[in-house]
């Protein structure tokens, strides 16, 4: 049996969902016999593959970079999973939505800066006016709330998907869990 191709991606989030992924500990060894992690902040490849079976998306869509990434990922993914509250609800990143981008940048790069009091203009991707949950940008197939979802929850989601079932996580996780 060929292995299931899995990708994970980190948009506007704190990486806590990826930490929770790693918290699966010894179960990762067992998963590795059934799954290939083909793209992730945790592995080397820099380009998203042609087609993957499952992509776990951590984080909300906040910038041009997030936007371009998620469009490409959707196009090359069979089952897209919104992993964690930032992806599902926009969570903490969306707390800036009541302010303008100028106000946010001013707060971060001028008011609270010790040196070089100026917002960056090069390399750093442009922020959108509003942070959005992933499903407001592309179609999402599975929603896994939690901040972060526990290692048990992520393990359940992956084993269900590997078995060809769409997981129902309502009983084991919730918003803010």
């Amino acid at each position: 049996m060929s292995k299931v191709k899995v990708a994970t991606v980190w948009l506007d989030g704190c990486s806590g969902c990826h930490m929770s992924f790693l918290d699966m500990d010894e179960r990762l060894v067992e998963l590795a016999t059934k799954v290939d992690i083909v793209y992730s902040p945790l592995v080397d490849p820099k380009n998203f593959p042609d087609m993957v079976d499952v992509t776990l998306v951590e984080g909300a869509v906040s910038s041009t970079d997030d936007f371009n990434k998620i469009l490409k990922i959707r196009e090359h993914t069979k089952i897209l999973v919104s992993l964690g509250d930032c992806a599902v609800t926009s969570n903490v990143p969306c707390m800036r939505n009541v302010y303008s981008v100028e106000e946010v940048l001013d707060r971060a790069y001028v008011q609270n800066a010790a040196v070089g009091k100026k917002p960056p203009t090069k390399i750093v991707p442009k922020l959108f006016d509003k942070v959005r949950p992933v499903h407001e940008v592309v179609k999402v197939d599975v929603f896994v709330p939690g901040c972060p979802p526990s290692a048990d929850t992520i393990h359940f989601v992956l084993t269900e998907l590997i078995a060809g079932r769409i997981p129902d996580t309502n009983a084991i996780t919730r918003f803010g869990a």
Partner: protein
Amino acid sequence: MSPMTAQVVTLKIDGQDVSAHENDSILTAAREHGVFIPTLCNLDGLTTLGACRLCLVEMAGSPKLLPACTTKVSEGMEVVTSSERIAKYRRMVIELLFAEGNHICAVCVSNGHCELQSMAQTVGMTHVSVPYLYPKRTVDASHERFTVDHNRCILCMRCVRVCDEIEGAHTWDVMGRGTAAKVITDMNQPWGTSDTCTSCGKCVHVCPTGSLFEKTASVSEMLKRRHFLPYLTMMREEVE
């Protein structure tokens, strides 16, 4: 409690024959017979309002869904409390509440003890399918002991009702319409400057979300104690 003269009526709830006092609501009758109907604005010990629409039920002969809390039972009534249609509307009610405010469970004082949060799980809400509004709302921390965070308010009016009906102060009220509606203290002034507030804290403890909380509480720490309410109401009725 219904008066002694109340008549008993019989009706059907989910196909089961039940009897109830004629003054009872569908919600009361259902609960007495162990039928669960979800609610948010309803609270034992306060008058019923019908604000949250979560308790909507189907009734034979009515094309509309009706709120179980404010609809009285009647003879021969046939009520259905759970169906695909009802489940859809209940999920929609919760999704709209999440979309209309700024509910960030992960950083909320009521995380893990919030009625809105647990109701999302109860009705099986996987995500909010309408666009979030991200309204610009305020936080008033001018009171010595309590804070009101309007971002988390779902306008259930429990605070307004408990302050008026139980404490008798009527510090809380509501102003504005639609998405601009908000709870206010006295003449829409900072809570700390209110002349009528007795600082009893009843509003804080009946609030279903983290909108009203004690200043000592950090994330997940605001435990609400509201079991006192039905006893308070009951004892007062017995004296009368």
